[in-house]
């Protein structure tokens, strides 16, 4: 169990962490979600002792983290990279040894991972000779080669194509299913929605909402309804609903969570033949918007505007 309590960190005038707390459990995948600059990377670095915290505690299995515990962790930093000219099998072996494996165990683990990734025939190749997608997979293998108990992945799906997202997503998911504690950060909520068991939503350096993904979506006061009537007829929303969007595919409505879905469907069926109907808890993006008061895109745009204003003031 990883427990972070009340983490505070300032860099001069900038508050990076303002009381962030989170708990990650074994066998579950925790999504650590928020806009760029919310404090996700600083929090993850704090787990590895790369940040001197002003306040707060970082505990693993109920104790402060020491070098021995850290060797059982796997880390994929946001700024990732490996030695460009070193053979990929040698790199994985080296990292395995640094994490405490014997030379032979590290070599065996590297071979196993490269075989699983379909890269056994490229074991001696330097990283730069691999495609971007394969480099990303080797990068993830570098965090996994020693079979870590805790896996900290900072924006692991950034910059990947859909196929790469699916492949790496499956690899990460398998780690949690095998019993590892997995923490994965992202500012692209739609990418990780299908992966996470639990989420912590973070903004402005502190956690705003946490719990199992199912629970926090269920706790949202609204539900999203999709309906398509025959002939492309636009339905008249019932009094408690509002239209979110209408497209050629159909109409999206937002209704209170306590609306009776069967009665709603009956009402819509009276307006025409219902060809499609879905009654869903809202997506993570909507949960974030309601929790923080703005979408991730809006928060990041606001931060950029603030930065530009500060730059102008400094220049003036």
């Amino acid at each position: 169990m990883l427990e972070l309590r009340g983490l505070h960190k300032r860099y001069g005038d900038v508050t990076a962490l303002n009381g962030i707390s989170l708990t990650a459990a074994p066998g579950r995948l925790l999504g650590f979600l928020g806009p760029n600059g919310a404090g996700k990377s600083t929090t993850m670095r704090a787990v590895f002792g790369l940040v001197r915290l002003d306040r707060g505690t970082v505990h693993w299995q109920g104790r402060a983290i020491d070098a021995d515990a850290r060797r059982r962790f796997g880390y994929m930093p946001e700024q990732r990279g490996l030695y460009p000219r070193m053979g990929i099998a040698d790199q994985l072996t080296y990292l395995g040894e640094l994490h405490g494996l014997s030379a032979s165990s590290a070599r065996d683990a590297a071979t196993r991972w490269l075989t699983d990734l379909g890269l056994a025939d490229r074991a001696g190749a330097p990283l730069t000779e691999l495609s971007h997608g394969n480099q990303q997979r080797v990068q993830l293998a570098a965090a996994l080669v020693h079979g870590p108990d805790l896996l900290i992945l900072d924006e692991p799906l950034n910059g990947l194509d859909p196929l790469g997202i699916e492949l790496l997503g499956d690899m990460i998911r398998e780690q949690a299913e095998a019993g590892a504690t997995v923490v994965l950060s992202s500012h692209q909520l739609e990418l990780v929605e299908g992966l996470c068991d639990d989420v912590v939503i973070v903004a402005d350096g502190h956690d705003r909402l946490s719990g199992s993904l199912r629970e926090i979506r269920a706790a949202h006061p609204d539900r999203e309804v999709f309906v398509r009537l025959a002939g492309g007829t636009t339905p008249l929303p019932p009094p408690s609903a509002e239209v979110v969007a209408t497209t050629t595919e159909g109409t999206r409505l937002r209704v209170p969570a306590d609306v009776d879905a069967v009665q709603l469907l009956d009402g819509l069926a009276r307006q025409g033949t219902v060809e499609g109907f879905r009654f869903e808890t809202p997506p993570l993006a909507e949960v974030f918007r309601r929790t923080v008061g703005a979408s991730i895109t809006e928060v990041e745009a606001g931060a950029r505007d603030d930065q530009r204003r500060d730059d102008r003031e400094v220049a003036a």
Partner: protein
Amino acid sequence: MTQTRTIALVLRRELHDRLRNGMLWGVTVVLSLGVVALVVLPPLLADDAPERYEVALVDGRTDAFGAALTQHGPLLDIEVATTVVDQESAAVGMLTADEVDAALVGGPRLVTEDGSASTELETTVTQTVAQQRLLDALSAQGIPPTTARSLLAQEISVPVVDPAGESADGDAALILALVVTLVVMLMIQLNAAMVLSGTVEEKSNHVVEVLLGTLRPWHLLTGKLVALGVLALGQVAIIATAGLSANALVGGADLPEFGLGAVAVGVLMLVIGYAFYAALFAVAGSRAGSVEEASSTQGPFLLAIFASIILVFLVVLPNPTGTVAVVLSLLPPSAPFTLPARVALEALPVWQLVAGVAMTVLGTVLAVRLAGRMYAATILAGGSVGWRESLRAEAVP
């Protein structure tokens, strides 16, 4: 897993990486060949045969005079052979026919084809004539010419010594000082530059972020410094072996006695000076965001090396006991280059050697501690970091 094993793993990776680097081997081979050339070429190219002169003697000069002339020649590094003839005309005839180079005729005058002679031949003839007059005068006083001649024939050697009674081979000492200083400078600069490039590479391709997930910055810095230090000593061993082997093969000169001291101090200062500069170059690398930026962040340290070398060549070698030489011996940036040169020139009192080594060790300890802190503060920062910023930055615990 112990910290020692962590550092050993870093060290092993650095060694493997550098030993696969063609540039390391290229530099080692070029330097070895350079030293071999310095050892082998001078004996091969040197023309040690003394100039030979054939001189015709007339005006009653005898074979005994010719023997004296032949004996005096080597004192001025020439070889003189004589032929006694009866007539001056016969001597001039031989001169015209190129059978002799000069003729000593009545007067006495030394006749040559163009009316001039080398200083060595002229001086040898003049001394021999003067000696002959002395022998004649002694004979007139009743001292037999054979007795006087045997006294003059005794080999007399007047040694050249310093006030302490020590004699030195000035040229050999200067060459040794130059070679030792240059080798120390090249080894320090090349290997410190490798520390710099390795640090820049790890930072610019972000592998350091992955590594710091399990090890600390000082593990990385220590492993890197030790690995490159071992390689530097290995390079010196290869270069020295090449030079000594070549010297043995061509039957070259014996190393002067003081040479071993200069080499020993050179190796000692190479180790200490390498640690001093490599730590600073590691900081320069950690402050740079790219290889291009590293060329400017390493500027002050390169300047310190080159300024020290220029001062050694221009000031210390010509005046190895002067105030500037003493000051440079005590300053950590310049001592690694100054101390071996002064030992080679036998111009370094023991107290200055001890003080210079102690000051450099102290400076190195401070540099490594400061570098360790700055490295830990800047290695995770993206892009380039200014000096003031890196001094104020918070080090990774």
